[in-house]
């Protein structure tokens, strides 16, 4: 297996990093580490299709494909392995992948689904499901029981979800093509909802080098308007006691803390609360921000998590778990 390390630009010293300098004061003396992390390609993570076999049963297949000697189990999930970015492997063309024994995802993308902790026989909504990796993870965690309504506005992107359903053998997914900001009321209530909204994707720059070049004059306010509408509608459909995971792959507080704060302001802090996230063993996270520019956020925003790439050799991410504490009059 050969090594192919793509040389990345030295972000810290190029205009490429300009859009992220607005976060420099948040990171303070970690800024150089952050820049260094972004200059490296992203490790690959593969997770076991536990509806089909156990991680232990998958191991010999990884060995046979020459992957196991390079693989490290995730510190916080026994079912997934991390593989170095330097490996020149087309993971999606290997037999265990084609036979639906594993799926590929970035490590941080596994976190909101894991934190949402869906249970078999529950009713789950995934508001923005495509391309479907998180949906599939939820389906496996539910052991193929219950219902996942996997919604996305884009029919083209839903094809990717369908392909994952076929390969992994998932029975509990109903796909819908709808504007998540405007679900009809009679869609019913859900035990848990994944609200993984479209965002500026700043945190994905390690796998998509071009993403930062699109951020000049990025309209965070316009994007956050859509994010607020989707989160608001989702939280209204939670059953009392139900939990939603709001997640993005961006560092921008306008798309993270501000969205959560403003939506809970609108729905009433008595009816919803931001609850602590479960501990990710061996994985460093930072609390959500309480201040950004001239804004302040509710103290419970510290229960949300920010994931910075240099802490765990990942992409960037944000997750807030929101619980509906009581029924709300509409």
């Amino acid at each position, binding site marked *: 297996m050969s090594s192919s390390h793509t040389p990345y630009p030295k972000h810290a010293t190029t205009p490429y990093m300009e859009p992220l300098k607005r976060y420099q004061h948040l990171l303070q003396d970690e800024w150089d580490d952050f820049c260094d992390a972004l200059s490296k390609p992203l490790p690959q993570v593969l997770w076991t299709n536990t509806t089909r076999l156990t991680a232990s049963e998958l191991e010999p297949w990884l060995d046979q494909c020459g992957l196991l000697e390079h693989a490290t189990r995730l510190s916080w999930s026994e079912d997934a392995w991390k593989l170095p970015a330097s490996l020149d492997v087309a993971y999606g063309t290997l037999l265990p992948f084609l036979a639906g024994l594993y799926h590929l995802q970035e490590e941080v993308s596994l976190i909101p689904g894991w934190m949402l902790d869906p249970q078999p026989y529950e009713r789950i909504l995934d508001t923005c499901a495509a391309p479907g990796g998180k949906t599939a993870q939820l389906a496996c965690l539910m052991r193929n029981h219950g219902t996942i309504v996997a919604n996305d506005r884009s029919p083209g992107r839903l094809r990717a979800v369908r392909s994952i359903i076929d390969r992994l053998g998932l029975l509990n997914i109903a796909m819908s093509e709808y504007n998540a900001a405007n679900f009809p009321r009679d869609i*019913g209530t859900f035990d848990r909802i994944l609200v993984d909204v479209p965002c500026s994707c700043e945190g994905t720059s390690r796998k998509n080098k071009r993403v930062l070049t699109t951020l000049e004059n990025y309209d965070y306010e316009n994007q956050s308007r859509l994010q607020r509408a989707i989160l608001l509608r989702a939280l209204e459909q939670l059953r009392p006691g139900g939990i939603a995971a709001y997640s993005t792959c961006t560092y921008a507080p306008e798309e993270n803390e501000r969205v959560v704060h403003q939506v809970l302001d609108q729905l009433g802090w008595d009816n919803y609360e931001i609850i602590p996230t479960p501990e990710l063993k061996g994985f460093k996270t930072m609390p959500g921000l309480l201040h950004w520019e001239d804004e302040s956020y509710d103290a419970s925003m510290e229960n949300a998590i920010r994931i910075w790439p240099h802490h765990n050799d990942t992409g960037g991410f944000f997750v807030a778990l929101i619980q509906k504490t009581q029924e709300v009059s509409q």
Partner: protein
Amino acid sequence: MHEEPEFLTIDYIDSAPWITLLNDRFGIPTESFESYRWYQPNRKLISLLNTSMQPPRRPEPISMGLPFIRINMKYPKLTTGGTLFVGPLATKNVVELTEEQVNSYYSRAMYIPLTEEQTTRCTTMGYIILSFQGIILGQGFYRPKSEEEDANFDSFYPKAFANHAQRSALG
């Protein structure tokens, strides 16, 4: 207060003929499907659902469950996803492939030769389930040995899934 959710009323189909078909061809025990429901979304397809599925009436789902059997053909055929799902239960018309045959299968080759030993669980010309070291890969079309040719099969690996990398599926 919320309106009571109106779950979609799904018109499940009688699964008996299809279960018989799978039992006849692949020896899949009929009781294997007790915890599933069968649904025909259109004239081309039957999907398999779990029994606890509660999809919404609105927005109406554009698909539900696992696409399982293609029925708009003379001989209804398990989908590749369906084969991966139910293949481990098959007891006949299952062929264990060599590594070389695995790569031919993923390249969508035709007339892939089979040894006599490989065809011991095959019955007649038709669909076979392909495996490698016990892992189900998908389906092929089997031709038994005849005066004109040795036993062989065509890959039914879907074009959309095909291994374009031209590498071995085992690294």
